[in-house]
Structure formats: structure tokens, C-alpha cells
């Protein structure tokens, strides 16, 4: 591991190459580059998760921490690790100060693994419009986490309005075990009947203000073509925001999946004894690992997000984002040319 203080992007590139030469073949074969955008307070958490995910998918990890955007002098500190704290692969942790933080891509671009997909993950509140962050524009897949926001429901709506194919959200990933349990329960019902099952309605019991609960209800709605709501249940739900799901089926049958608070869930279905399945709250690294398995657009997520927010037409959006320059230091959002003569002005942004 080497730490470079007050350095430049090219020095980081050089150091990475130097370490690769001297460090020996720690890892060969890289499937993707994972760009992690994290707040200083969440860096440790993000690093741990990225390391766990990298154990499943060989990748280069680039952690970007933006600090003190108002610092007068731009500055870059970087830590270059190969086969160290961040797993067997190559990793660079970069802290960017001052105006440099607005141009993080200038450091990141030369560090991307050649011709491999780029995944950007915000372990921080994501920008309202992802295209204002150049790290989103260079990514093939963008992972946000609405559960980080104060107000999950608004965050989901923002994500829906901003959605492009290739976006995904960890609040959605958290629903996978629930969705798997519900799906296999209906498999069991149709297996017993030897015939199709129709889903007529139901409810998600849990926290209506939780993004995962909303997305789960949205998914069920999109699958059955009927509206399902998140209702406050008798018990306070765990961190997943969901305590139970009850589904009404045709033939007057009902199935339910209820969290048992011990990392499992109880499945109730007609004509069969109750069964329990594992339904653990998964660590962040597992969630991220699941996201990295497939990098194509996630249509079921788009549909669930549509139903959860009422914003339509998500899957018809263009998959490519155009970068929009936004200067947080200016009230109108546009960079002042005197201050920052080199700022590009994107066609989408009005030129002052």
C-alpha cells in the first residue's frame, strides 16, 4: 500500500502500474471497474462492502470521497492498494478537495480497467439528477440507495423521475429474499393444484415510509395488475421495512409470508403445514455482490418503481445520459466563467 499526499491523477496511474509490477500477479482478469462514491462518514462501510463484493466479482475498486468543495485550493490524496485491505484486486481510495471534487472523472477516467464495464455506486445521498455527476455518465450501471435518504418516498420518486435503463437501487436488492420466498410459495401452490395461480390482490405489512417495502408492493402490483399497498402492520418491521406479505389468490385461497425476527420467515399456505425459510437481513457487501452479477437493465425494477411511484414510461427512456454541468457553489447552478474558465457547458444547460 502506498499513500500519495497532494498528488495528481497521473501519479496515481503510475503508482498503480508500479505496484502491479512489483506486487506480482495477485489477481489477473478483471470483469469490471467499481466506482464507489462515498461520504467521509461512510467510507469504512463502503470499503467493507466493496471488498466483499469484489470477492465474488474480480474488479478494480475506485473509491471517491469528495470533501470540502469550498476549499480554496484543489487537492488530491490517494491510497493505492493491491492485494491489501480492499481484497485481492487493485484498489485506489481517493479523497478530493476543492473544485477538483467537481471534476472527479478527470482522475477516475484513466484509472478505469480497459474496455470493461463501469459500475458506479453511491454510498451517499445520490444526486437528484444522476447526469449532473460525471461519474454516473461514464457508468454502464448505476447503483443508488434510497434507504440512505431521510425521506425514502421522496428519494424513490426522484429516482423514478430520473430513471434510465441501467439504474438500480439497493432498496430493490433488499427485496430479493422476500420476492424469492413469495415466488416459491406460489410455485408450491401451483404445484399442488397442478394448475395456474392467479393473484387477485393483497397487502404488504410494514413501514409505508420504507423504500424496500414500497418497491416490494410495487413489484407485486406490477405482477398481478392490481394495486397493492403498504399498510402499517400490528408489529414494527425490522430493517427491511417489511413485516409480512399477504396475498389473495383465486379459488378463495390466501398465502402469507411473515418475518419471524430470527432471520427467517414463516410461510402459510392452504392445505400445507406452515414452513420456515431463511430470510436474513443481508450485509451491504452481499447486496452489492448481487448487483454486480448482471449489468444489463433491470426491467422488473423499472416496473416496480413505476408502480411504487406512479411515474410512467420508465423503460422507454434513453439508456445514455448526457452530462449536465451543475455547480453547487452557484445559486443558479451554472459555473461562473470568470471563476472556472475551463468548465464545459453542456448543451442541455442554459448558457449564462
Amino acid at each position, binding site marked *: 500500500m502506498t499513500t500519495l499526499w497532494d498528488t495528481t491523477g497521473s501519479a496515481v496511474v503510475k503508482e498503480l502500474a508500479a505496484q502491479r509490477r512489483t506486487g506480482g500477479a495477485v489477481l489477473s482478469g478483471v470483469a469490471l471497474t467499481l466506482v464507489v462514491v462515498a461520504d467521509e462518514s461512510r467510507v469504512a462501510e463502503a470499503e467493507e462492502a466493496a471488498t466483499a463484493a469484489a470477492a465474488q466479482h474480480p474488479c478494480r475498486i475506485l473509491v471517491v470521497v469528495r470533501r470540502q468543495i469550498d476549499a480554496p485550493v484543489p487537492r488530491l490524496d490517494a491510497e493505492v492498494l493491491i492485494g491489501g485491505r480492499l481484497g485481492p484486486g487493485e484498489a485506489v481510495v481517493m479523497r478530493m478537495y476543492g473544485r477538483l471534487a467537481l471534476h472527479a472523472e478527470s482522475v477516475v477516467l484513466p484509472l478505469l480497467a480497459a474496455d470493461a464495464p463501469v459500475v458506479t455506486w453511491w454510498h451517499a445521498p445520490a444526486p437528484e439528477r444522476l447526469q449532473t455527476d460525471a461519474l454516473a455518465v461514464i457508468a454502464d450501471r448505476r447503483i443508488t440507495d434510497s434507504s440512505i435518504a431521510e425521506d425514502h418516498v421522496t428519494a424513490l420518486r426522484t429516482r423514478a423521475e430520473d430513471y434510465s435503463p441501467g439504474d438500480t437501487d439497493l432498496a430493490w436488492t433488499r427485496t430479493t429474499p422476500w420476492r424469492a420466498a413469495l415466488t416459491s410459495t406460489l410455485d408450491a401452490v401451483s404445484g399442488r393444484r397442478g394448475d395456474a395461480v392467479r393473484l387477485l390482490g393483497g397487502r404488504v405489512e410494514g413501514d409505508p415510509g420504507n423504500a424496500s417495502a414500497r418497491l416490494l408492493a410495487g413489484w407485486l402490483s406490477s405482477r398481478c395488475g392490481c394495486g397493492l399497498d403498504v399498510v402499517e402492520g400490528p408489529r414494527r418491521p425490522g430493517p427491511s421495512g417489511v413485516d409480512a406479505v399477504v396475498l389473495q389468490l383465486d379459488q378463495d385461497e390466501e398465502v402469507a409470508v411473515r418475518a419471524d425476527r430470527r432471520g427467517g420467515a414463516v410461510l402459510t399456505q392452504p392445505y400445507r403445514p406452515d414452513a420456515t425459510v*431463511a430470510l436474513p437481513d443481508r450485509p451491504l457487501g452481499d447486496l452489492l455482490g448481487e448487483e454486480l452479477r448482471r449489468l444489463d437493465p433491470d426491467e422488473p425494477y423499472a416496473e416496480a418503481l413505476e408502480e411504487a411511484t406512479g411515474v410512467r414510461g420508465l423503460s422507454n427512456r434513453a439508456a445514455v445520459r448526457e452530462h449536465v454541468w451543475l455547480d453547487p457553489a452557484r445559486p443558479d447552478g451554472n459555473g461562473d466563467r470568470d471563476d472556472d474558465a475551463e468548465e464545459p457547458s453542456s448543451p442541455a444547460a442554459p448558457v449564462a
Partner: protein
Amino acid sequence: MIVNPLRDPRDRRLPRVPDPCALVVFGITGDLARKKLLPAVYDLANRGLLPTNFALLGFARRDWGDQDFAELAREAARKAARTPWREEVWERLAGSVRFVQGAFDDDDAFDELAAALGDLESSHGIGGNAAFYLSIPPAMFPVVLKQMERTGMAESTAERWRRVVVEKPFGTDLASSRELNELVDSVFSADDVFRIDHYLGKETVQNLMALRFANTLFEPIWNGHHVDSVQITMAEDVGIGGRAGFYEKTGAARDVLQNHLLQLLALTAMEEPVEFSAEEIRTEKLKVLRAISLPDDMATAAIRGQYEPGWLAGQRAHGYRQEEGVDAASTTETYAAVRLGVETRRWAGVPFYLRTGKRLPRRVTEIALVFKRAPHLPFADTDTEELGNNQLVVRVQPDEGVTLKFGSKVPGSVMEVRDVSMDFLYGEQFTEASPEAYERLLLDVLLGDATLFPRNAEVEASWAVIDPLEEFWAGSRPHPYRAGEWGPRAADEMLAADGRRWRRP
């Protein structure tokens, strides 16, 4: 017709989960069950891949209660599980674990087993589905199968499936494997029989098909025009352990060559299947196995060996004849190497060298395609002295991955070319998360997916290759080799006679 509205082919996050079912293991107290099966069941549960209504039923001679069995199973699973241990997952699983005590020839015990399955139907809602895992010596198969037939346990109906899992060895020669197949098929229907060859459950072996059929790069040179020879090696550094009784009757050819090596050969040499389905892949593999030709000169191209005392990894190792339970004049082979041909347009004239052995320097399994040398080299002879054949090596274990070996200029002011290797390493770090072979195969059995299981015709075609070799070897004495060296000299001479040499894996 949409059977389950929540299933969506685009939704690749949701795992395939089997129907409600029971897994019945005969010989649950055995080595395989404890080291592989029970941990695999736990790992499946931990990954959420078991059906919601699932039960595990153990059958063995030992006098145990459900409690004792649950305790043993817990210990076994905990010791060898690959996923992190979570007590709550095990507790849930333990709630659906049953044990039935009895001997295989005991009618009462099997009646009890049938009754226990019936009970599980009402208590665990297994829907009548069951997979029977025969983790028992093949000699016991007839008795157990007859019992299952008698109690009607083996019948699949429209409402329920019943499957049987058979471990190798599938017989000891063509005749006995036919007999065994007929026996199994008379009790279970052919589609319900799953023959486990755990090598086929390995990630790299499945990756071989991705490598060949998903890329444009390799297939054009994957034939006799470009390939000089193929070497398939499965080496073990261990001896026979405590399995003398089994090994004395079996030997390396029957133990490894007949199944693992010939399956690897089939996957390497087969044509592209029409689609990636069980039936199509098996069809292509069968074509290759039937096209295998044996060497005319067996004396030089079918070598077997037996290890003698030596040093391995810094420790003194016994010779095979000194192992406990082995006849001091034993002629059982612990090493076998053979040159086979595959008589198809793609492979005519390309020798396939297969070798396997115990007490070799290291444990390694790999498939190496050795390419022909460039027809013309524009360099001076001295420039390319160190240049060998290009090679493409699929490393099955350990260090799963792919190596490409090619010539490259030695940096410096003179033109000199030598071999370098380029590695793609799906190292331990990355395969830890991928399921263990038994886990994958067990799941496939419960799902009814037979892609990774050889069918009986393949087994019989493999024996048709092995039988003439065994016949030729019968009565002869294997070539001796020292424990800790790469096999007998005769095996090296076999390649040297063809102007080739073994790759050191």
C-alpha cells in the same frame, strides 16, 4: 399459460427453487454423506435454495434417534459448510430432519421408511416428491432397490416425482454396468435416474462449455488442423487412504479414467450442442464417447503403474503394496496413462493422452490443448530454440482458470523468442462464493435438471473403452514408479515415441 404470476423470465435475481420434496439418504453415516452431502444441504438452505417444504431423511443401520442424528448432521454440516454458519438456519433445517434405523434387508425398516415419507407429507407438506440418494456400496444396490420397488417408493406418478441418485462406480465393466443400469431402470424410469460425477459439477468444467461455445476465438482452432495433441491429467498427491478394500478391486482406470477423464474428454471434444439442454449435451457427449478408438499398440500406448516407497512433499510415503489391507503381491494399478483417438472429422489423427495417478507430486486436474507449431518461422533457428508449442490449458483444480501459453520476445537487443504464459485465474477468492460441486448437483437433482449428469448410454460407452484396456492389462504387473514422481518411465516413453512429452502441470 402463466403458472405463477410472480415468475418473470427477465427477473434473474430470483433463484430456481425446487418443488416441495424430501431428500432420503441411504448410508447417511458414511464418509460421503458427512463430508459432502450434509454440508451441501446446509449451504443450499443458507442460500435460500431449498423449497419451503423440505425434509431430510437419513437411513442407516445405526441405532439412533432423530436427536442423535440431528446432532451428527449438525456437526458434519458445521465442519464442512462453505457458507457462514448461521445457527438459526440450521435450527430450521433440523426441524425437518428425520432418521430411520434399519438394515437394508430389513422389510420392517423399509415399511417404516415408507411410512415416514407418508408422515412427512402431512407434517412437512413435501407433496409426495422425494429424491433417494444411494450413498452406499454398489453391492447393496440390488437389495435397496428391491426394497424400494416392494414398498412402491420408487414410482413417479403425475402428482409426484421420485428420483434416485447413484454414485460412481457405475459397475466394474460393461456387463456389470449394464446389469446395474437395467436394475436401476427397472425400478426407476430412466429420466429419474441421476448418476453423479462430481467433476461435472465443478465451475471450470461448466466454464469449458462457455469458453468453447460463447466465444469466437477458440472454436475455429479447436480441431485437428490446429491442435497437435490433447493431454488430460488428473493427479492426486494422496495415496489410497483407508480405502484398500475398494481400491484393490478397482484400480485407477476404473476409479478415475472410466468416469472423470472420459467425461472431460467428451466435453473437450464434443461438437456444439444444438441447444444448451440436458438432452442435446448428452447426445453430443455420447457421440464422442462412441467415436473413441483404442491404440493398436497397447503395450506401448496403454501404461499402468503402481507407486513404490518414496518421498512426497518432504515426507516419507509408503509404497502401494505396503499400504494396510493391500496384498503384498498386488497388481492393482495406481496410475494409468493411455493414448486414445477420437474418430471424427474434427479430431482424426489427434492423440488424446489421458493420465491419472496417486502419489504424484501435486494434486492437479487440467485439460491441455497443445497446438501445432507454426508451419514456417521467419527467424533464425537459434532465435526460436526455446519456443515450444502454443498451449491452451483449462485448469479444473486447483487454481481454477485458463492459461494460454505462447511465444514472446525476450526483452533485449537480440531477437530471441521464448514461451510465456498468460493466466486467467478464477482463484480461491472467486470460487469461494460459487457453489461446491455437490451443492450444485444436489440442487439439480431436486430441480430435475439432468444437464450435468451422464446418462446410462454414456456410462456404457465409457466401459466399452475401458474393458479392452483391462483385458489387456489383466495378469500383467504394473510399471513401478516412486511415490512423488510423475508416473512410471514407460508413460514418458509412450509420448517420447510420438515425439512429444508430458506437460508438467
